[in-house]
């Protein structure tokens, strides 16, 4: 239990810290690096939740795939001017405040509904081999959504190619 908690707090702190840094860094590359860090921390939390498969998927897809894309694009469109421009837009103060209000409200809602969710009842049992289980459920119960998701990816891929092509 002890190790569990330590791991959680470590990853949580890492995630939140990196996230804050990600939002506040001026340099987009740094932002990306901190986002990667956040994502890895979240992956760690997945691992701590005994979801090995998702842990690996998170790393492969998010960190190894999506973020590479981001870094790549940042380098492609890297503008030296960007470093000297304003970081935040003109509504930033209002927006930040409102976001915090939103968070506060959410906390209030959550706390006041605490009785409604049975939030402590977590089973201590270890789950069966995770990848296999995910696969079984994914290809049986969620087969149709899976196919739809694959079509979504296909569409996105074609869209991205068409979009990024110089001449269509």
């Amino acid at each position: 239990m002890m190790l569990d908690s330590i791991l959680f707090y470590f990853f949580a702190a890492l995630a939140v810290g990196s996230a804050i840094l990600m939002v506040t860094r001026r340099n987009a590359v740094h932002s990306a690096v901190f986002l990667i860090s956040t994502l890895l921390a979240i992956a760690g939390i997945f691992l701590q939740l005994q979801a090995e498969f998702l842990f690996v998927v998170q790393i492969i897809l998010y960190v190894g795939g999506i973020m590479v894309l981001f870094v790549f694009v940042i380098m492609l469109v890297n503008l030296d001017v960007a470093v000297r421009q304003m970081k935040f837009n003109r509504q930033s103060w209002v927006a930040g405040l409102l976001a915090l209000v939103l968070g506060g409200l959410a906390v209030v809602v959550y706390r006041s509904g605490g009785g409604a969710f049975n939030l402590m009842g977590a089973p201590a049992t270890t789950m069966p081999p995770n990848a296999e289980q995910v696969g079984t459920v994914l290809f049986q119960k969620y087969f149709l959504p899976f196919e739809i998701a694959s079509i979504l990816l296909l569409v996105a891929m074609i869209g991205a190619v068409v979009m990024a092509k110089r001449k269509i």
Partner: protein
Amino acid sequence: MLPVSHYIYLSLALFIIGVIGVLTRRNVIIILMSIELILNAVNINLMAFSRMWGSVDGQIFAIFIITDAAAEAAVGLGIIIAFFRNRPTVLADEMDLLKW
């Protein structure tokens, strides 16, 4: 296992940070990254509840969300590249017309 509330607060924190990023940053790429963060916050919730109920359905949804994030990133970045080719800027408040 830790109480689910821990995970919920964590995800809430990440969510709000993501929202702040989306609302305040001018760089479109960072806005996109903030959106990714928001999606991840949701994932944490899903995973926590999945663990709580001892069923993998939540993980499946997390997979779908990751899929969606990948699609979104691909198309979004594609749009940025296409846009950048027309007007060398990545600032969100300079992109306020539907057509050049």
